[in-house]
């Protein structure tokens, strides 16, 4: 079943379009990785799906509901969470408070959800009173993902989760992403680390110059010679 669908997206920050008629489909429970060179518009696509940018043309559909052009807080309520690439935590607040802010729009008792997030990121539980600004890059990324998970999203959008992390931490984060996915959360991951991203992915999309170039199963894209040469560094 297709849970999230973006079709014919044309969008830009100014009058210049960054994306031209881009489309993407995510089935429920799937990891979809988007790869492509710098400036391909990968992050722009995530921002458009989450309502931070309003598309000039095209539509975003969650399940059967048109969510095109809604504001981020509305989209968060519908079941999509987004982790930006940078500045994705509240640095002067504690880990616990960051998670509480993730649950800001929940009016019910979310203490169980906080527990589940701490079960996933056990290292955070030990430090829940610590300010996030004092944490390492890997732990910050965990806080960022934990914050986004507080709403129990159906779809999680991750923008470059491995950016700026030491290689040993990168595999940690990817492992956590697999664990989150195993709980049934569908994901769209934008990654520079294309090979790793495709290994995890059920489905992969290649974007270049703001257009769809190719899409296929993750392993099929990995095996594709042209993709290997152009986008995976040989």
């Amino acid at each position: 079943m297709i849970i999230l669908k973006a079709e014919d997206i044309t969008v830009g920050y100014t009058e210049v379009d960054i994306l031209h008629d881009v489309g993407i489909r995510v089935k429920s429970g799937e990891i979809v990785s988007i790869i492509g060179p710098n400036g391909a518009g990968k992050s722009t696509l995530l921002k458009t799906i989450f309502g931070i940018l309003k598309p000039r043309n095209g539509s975003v559909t969650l399940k059967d509901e048109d969510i095109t052009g809604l504001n981020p807080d509305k989209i968060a309520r519908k079941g999509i969470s987004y982790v930006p690439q940078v500045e994705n935590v509240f640095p002067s607040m504690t880990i616990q408070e960051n998670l509480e802010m993730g649950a800001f729009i929940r009016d019910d008792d979310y203490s169980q959800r906080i527990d589940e997030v701490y079960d996933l990121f056990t290292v955070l539980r030990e430090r829940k009173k610590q300010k996030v600004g004092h944490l390492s890059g890997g732990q910050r990324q965990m806080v960022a993902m934990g914050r986004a998970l507080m709403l129990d999203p159906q779809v999680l959008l991750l923008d470059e989760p491995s950016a700026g992390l030491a290689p040993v931490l990168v595999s940690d984060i990817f492992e956590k992403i697999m664990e989150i996915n195993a709980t049934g959360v569908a994901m769209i991951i934008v990654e520079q680390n294309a090979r790793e991203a495709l290994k995890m992915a059920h489905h992969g999309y290649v974007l270049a110059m703001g257009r769809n170039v190719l899409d296929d199963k993750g392993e099929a894209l990995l095996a594709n010679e042209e993709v290997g040469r152009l986008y995976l560094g040989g």
Partner: protein
Amino acid sequence: MAELIVYGIVLGSIISLGAIGLSLVYGILRFANFAHGDFLTAGAYVALFMVTGVLSWIGIPDNTFGSLSFGWRMVIAFPISMVVVGCVAIALDRILYRKLRQKGSGAVMLAMSSLGAAFIIRMIILIIWGADSLFYRPGLMRPALEVPLGIKIRPDQILILFVVLFLVVLLHLFLKKTKMGKAMRATADNMELALISGINTERIIIWTWGIGGALAAAGGILYGIDVQLHPYMGWNFLIPLFAATILGTIGNIYGALIGGLTIGIAQQVSTAFLLPTYKLAVAFIIMILILLIRPKGIFGKE
């Protein structure tokens, strides 16, 4: 010297109340609100209007508490004035700053418009009350108590310290314990992420102005009790307010508290060596020194 330090703490606690509000607004909206000093003035005069006007008409007795210089009228006027000035600050944002923000005006444009707002508030006060210094209770003798170390301090001043302490603790609890308070800190930390988390940042901005205005009003009234009321009182506080805010790192309310106390003590102690008229220059010099040496303040990360 000990006496000057104590007077500095009293002055500094009043500066802190203004600086905390300035810092809250600056932390979230990233512009220097030059009208903040005039919120102090407005607070002092709204309380005057209540004490000598409304509350005397409705027959609230005029007696004072023990050796303090005020009584029930001020107790009632104080919170009312805080609410009124809080609403003035919110209204100013709605009709002026918000419009400019939506049109994409930069920080300089907003700061300039706040300068205009400051003039308007001050001129309204000048038109109504005139340019003379006023007192909540004219002609009252205000005896000082002797406390150890030969320090002379008036009961009013001791009370001022307790009121400031009470308000700061209240604000601390609000920011640390309540959902709205935490959302306010989150918005100051990272507005974009606050929006992404579904926090209604426009509502947070309203709260921020309300609290900032109310605290400024409290500062103004306390200064009026301690010294006197004057249409330029808040304007003269502006440099100490900014010095305290920058010293304590913009956006950090605990920093603003420490910054306020530091500036207050420095200003009072300087009168041992300099003419009292140089007090403002002392605050200004401290501000310049911070900007040169540690522009992000004592709590800022380099």
